[in-house]
C-alpha cells in the first residue's frame, strides 16, 4: 500500500486535494450534498475531464494538443445536426461524432509524424481549421439534441450522477485495461525516453500516431458530452477548453515533459479545476476576480510540481 502510494504519489495528492475541495464545496453549498447539486457538478467536471483525457494522450508522448477545444467545438456542431430525429439516425450519430474527433486527431498525428513538425505548431494550425469548419456548420449557436437522450446522459441513475458513472467506466473499462497493452506501455516509453523506446524495438511513429488519434477521440467524446449538457451546437467554445485542459493535466500530476502521469490524474485535475470554479461561485468572491484566483491556484500547483529542480546538483541539468 505504501509502495503503491509512493509510485502514484501524484495521483494520490490530486485525489486528496479533490476530496478536500469537494467536501468544502458541498459543505458551503446552500443545498448540500443533494443529487441535484452533485449532478450539475459532475456534468461540468466530466466535460473538462474528457478534454483533459484528450490533452493527456498528447502530453504523455511529450507533445501538446492545442486543438482539443477546436475538436470539441467541431464535434459539438456536428452533434447538433446528427443527434436528433429517428432512433437509428441518433445511434449512428453517437458513433459518428467520436469518429469525427478521432479523424481530427489522426490528421494531427499524420502531419506531426510524417511532416516532422512540432505538435504545438501543427495543432495550432489545425485548431483554426477545425473551428473554421465548425463556424461554417454553425455560424450562430443553434441546433438541437434529442432531450430524452440528453437527459439520460446528464441526470442520474438511482441517485448516482450519470457523469460519475461514465467517469468510472472510462477508468475501469478503458484506462486500466489499456494501461496493460503494448500501446499503453509504448506511450509512456515514447514520452519518457524516445531513444530508449526506439532502441527497444518500438515503432515510435505508430505510437505517436495512436496517441494523437486517441487525443482526437477523447476530444470528440468531450464534444459529444458537451452537446448532451447544452443540447445545442456552438462553434465558439474552443479557446477556453484548450487552455483549461492543459491546466487540468498539469494539476493532475501529468508532466509536460512526457512519460509521467495517468488518465486518472488528468481526470482528477479537471475535477479539481471545476470544483475550484464552483467553490468560488458560492464563496462570495466577485466574479471578475475569479480568473485571478484560479490563476494563482494553478501557478501554485505548477510550482510544487517543478520543485524537483531544487534537487539537481549539476546546474546544467536544470536546463535540460
Amino acid at each position, binding site marked *: 500500500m505504501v509502495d503503491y502510494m509512493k509510485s502514484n504519489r501524484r495521483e494520490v495528492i490530486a485525489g486528496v486535494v479533490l476530496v478536500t475541495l469537494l467536501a468544502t464545496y458541498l459543505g458551503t453549498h446552500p443545498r448540500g450534498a443533494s443529487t441535484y447539486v452533485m449532478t450539475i457538478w459532475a456534468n461540468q467536471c466530466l466535460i473538462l475531464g474528457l478534454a483533459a483525457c484528450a490533452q493527456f494522450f498528447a502530453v504523455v508522448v511529450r507533445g501538446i494538443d492545442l486543438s482539443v477545444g477546436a475538436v470539441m467545438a467541431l464535434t459539438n456542431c456536428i452533434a447538433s445536426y446528427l443527434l436528433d430525429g429517428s432512433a437509428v439516425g441518433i445511434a449512428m450519430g453517437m458513433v459518428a461524432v467520436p469518429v469525427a474527433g478521432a479523424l481530427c486527431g489522426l490528421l494531427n498525428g499524420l502531419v506531426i509524424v510524417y511532416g516532422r513538425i512540432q505538435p504545438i505548431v501543427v495543432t495550432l494550425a489545425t485548431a483554426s481549421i477545425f473551428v473554421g469548419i465548425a463556424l461554417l456548420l454553425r455560424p450562430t449557436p443553434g441546433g438541437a439534441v434529442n432531450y430524452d437522450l440528453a437527459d439520460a446522459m446528464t441526470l442520474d441513475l438511482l441517485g448516482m450522477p450519470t457523469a460519475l458513472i461514465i467517469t468510472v467506466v472510462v477508468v475501469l473499462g478503458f484506462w486500466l485495461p489499456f494501461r496493460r497493452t*503494448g500501446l499503453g506501455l509504448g506511450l509512456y516509453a515514447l514520452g519518457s525516453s524516445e531513444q*530508449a523506446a526506439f*532502441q*527497444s*524495438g*518500438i515503432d515510435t511513429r505508430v505510437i505517436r500516431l495512436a496517441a494523437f488519434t486517441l487525443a482526437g477521440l477523447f476530444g470528440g467524446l468531450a464534444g459529444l458530452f458537451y452537446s448532451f449538457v447544452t443540447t445545442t451546437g456552438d462553434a465558439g467554445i474552443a479557446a477556453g477548453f484548450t487552455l483549461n485542459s492543459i491546466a487540468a493535466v498539469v494539476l493532475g500530476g501529468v508532466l509536460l515533459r512526457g512519460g*509521467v502521469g495517468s488518465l486518472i490524474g488528468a481526470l482528477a485535475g479537471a475535477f479539481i479545476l471545476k470544483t475550484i470554479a464552483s467553490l468560488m461561485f458560492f464563496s462570495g468572491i466577485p466574479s471578475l476576480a475569479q480568473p485571478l484566483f484560479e490563476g494563482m491556484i494553478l501557478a501554485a500547483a505548477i510550482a510544487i510540481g517543478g520543485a524537483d529542480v531544487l534537487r539537481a546538483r549539476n546546474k*546544467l541539468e536544470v536546463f535540460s
Partner: protein
Amino acid sequence: MRRRAGTRAAAPFIAITMSGNGTPLLEMRNISKHFGATKALDGVDFTCNAGEVHAVLGENGAGKSTLMKLIAGVLQPTQGQLCVDGREVFLATPQAALRQGLVCMFQELSLVPDLTVRENLLLGAPGAGLGWLRGTGLEKAQDVLTRIGGAQIRMNARVADLTLPQRQQVEIAKAIMKKPRLLILDEATSALSASVVEQVFDLVREERDSGTAVLFISHRFHEIEALADRISVFRNGQRVETFMKGDHSYSEIIGMMVGQKIEELFPPKSPAREGSDVVLDVRNYTWEGRVRNVSLSVRRGQILGLGGLDGQGQGAFLMGLFGLLRKADGTTAISGQIADIRSPKDAKRQDVSLAYIPEDRKTEGLILDQSIRENLELAALGRPDLDAGDPALYAGSLDQLALKHGGLNLPVSSLSGGNQQKVVLAKWLALNPRCLLLADPTRGIDVKTKTQIYAILRQLADQGTAIVLLSTDYEELIQLCDETHVFFDGEVVAALSGDDLTPENIIAATLNVATPSRAAHG
C-alpha cells in the same frame, strides 16, 4: 538448441554454422559509416560465428560502438553490406535487427526511466505487439536476474530509482529474454562488481554453448581474458587485426590499439618550469560521491592532462571547477587566493579568470543559429572591464587560430566541426584567461585541425596560461601534456609525468591495475 528449434526458417542455418563449415552467422563486408566529414568506420570487414565469444577492443572513438549500432539497426551504414546467414539484409530499425535475432545491450542504457522494471522488460519483448501484454518471458527474465545477483530488484520498482549496476542487470535480463542469436554486450558490465560479473559471464558462456554468437566490448583486459574466444582490434575506424585469444600478448594488443606514434602531430614539449607560480590549486574536491578527494595544482605554462575511461569523474570535476556543480566540497585557490566559484559568472571574473571549453560544443559551447560574431561576444559580455562589441578583442585570437570562415556574420553552424571549436576557443581567449579548462576539445575533429589546436595550446602555455586538458585520447595525454592525472571511480589513481608517461602506464591506470605487467599475468 532445444528452445531455438522452433524459430523461423533460420534453424537449419544454425546447424550449418555450428558444424563450422562455412557461413558465418553475421558477416559485414566493406562497411563504412560517415558522420559528415568524420569517418567512424571506414571499409571494415568483420565476421561473427555462432557459438563463439568475439571480443572487440579499441580506444574511445575507434569505431566499436558505431559497429555495434550498425548491427543493432540503430544506425545504417553509409556503404557496404551486412549478411546474416549468408543472405544480405538491410537493418532499417532496431525491430528489423531483432527479427534477425540480433540483440544489443547498449552502453548508453536503453531502459525507459519512468517505467517499472517489469514494464521495461515487456517493452519490445518477443511477441509483444501493441495489444494485450501477456507477460510471456517474464519468468525467464526473473530467472536471469536472480542468477546474476539481481534477486533483490523488485519488478515494480521504477528504473529511475535503481542504481546504475541494477540497471545494467536489468539490461542484461532484457537482452537474454529476447532469445538472441547474436548477443552484443557493449560495456555491459562496466558498473558491476567482480562477483556479479562472474555470474554474468557464466550466463554468457551458457548462451554461447547453446549456439549464440556473442560480441563483447570491454575495456577490462581480465574480462576479455576470462570470456573471449576470438579478439578483433579496432583503431581509427578500421579493423587492425583479428586473432584467437592467446595469439598475442597484452603489450602487443595495446600496441595495436594505440597504433603508430605520430609524434609530428604534436608540438615539442617545453622544458619543465619547476619554479613557476601555481595558478590553480585544488584541495580535496568532492561532489556527490562521483568525484572524491581530488587534489591537484597547475602552474603557469603547464599543460595538465586528465585521463580515464568515460564517466570516472574527470568531466564532473572540470565542470565543478567552473562553478557548474552545487554542493561540492573542497577548496580552490587561484594564484594563492582562495576563490569561491559558484557559477560560470564567478569563474570568468577578472580576479579568477577561468575559461571552460565544454565537451559538447554544439549544445554547450555554441549557439548554432547565431552568427560567429555573436557567439564570439558571449563570454566577454558581463565583464565590466571589457567591451564585448569591440572586434579588436577577438582579432588577435582569430588570427592565431587561423579560423576559416566566409564572414563573421554567417551562422556558426556553417563552419566545420574543427572551426566551430576554434570559435569556442576564441571567445574565451578574448578574456585572456589565466587558466584554460578543456573537456576533450579534439573529439570528432579532423587531424589537421587537431594539430593546429595542439600547437595553439602549447603556444598559450608558453605565453603563461595554465591548461587543464581532459582527454580520451592516450596520444594527447602523452604527447601534449606535461603531467597526466588518471581518474578511476571518482578518484585520481595515478599522476604520471616525464618518463612514466607511457601508453602502458596510462592504460593500466585507467583500468586501475597497478602495473601493466601485473595486468598481463593477473
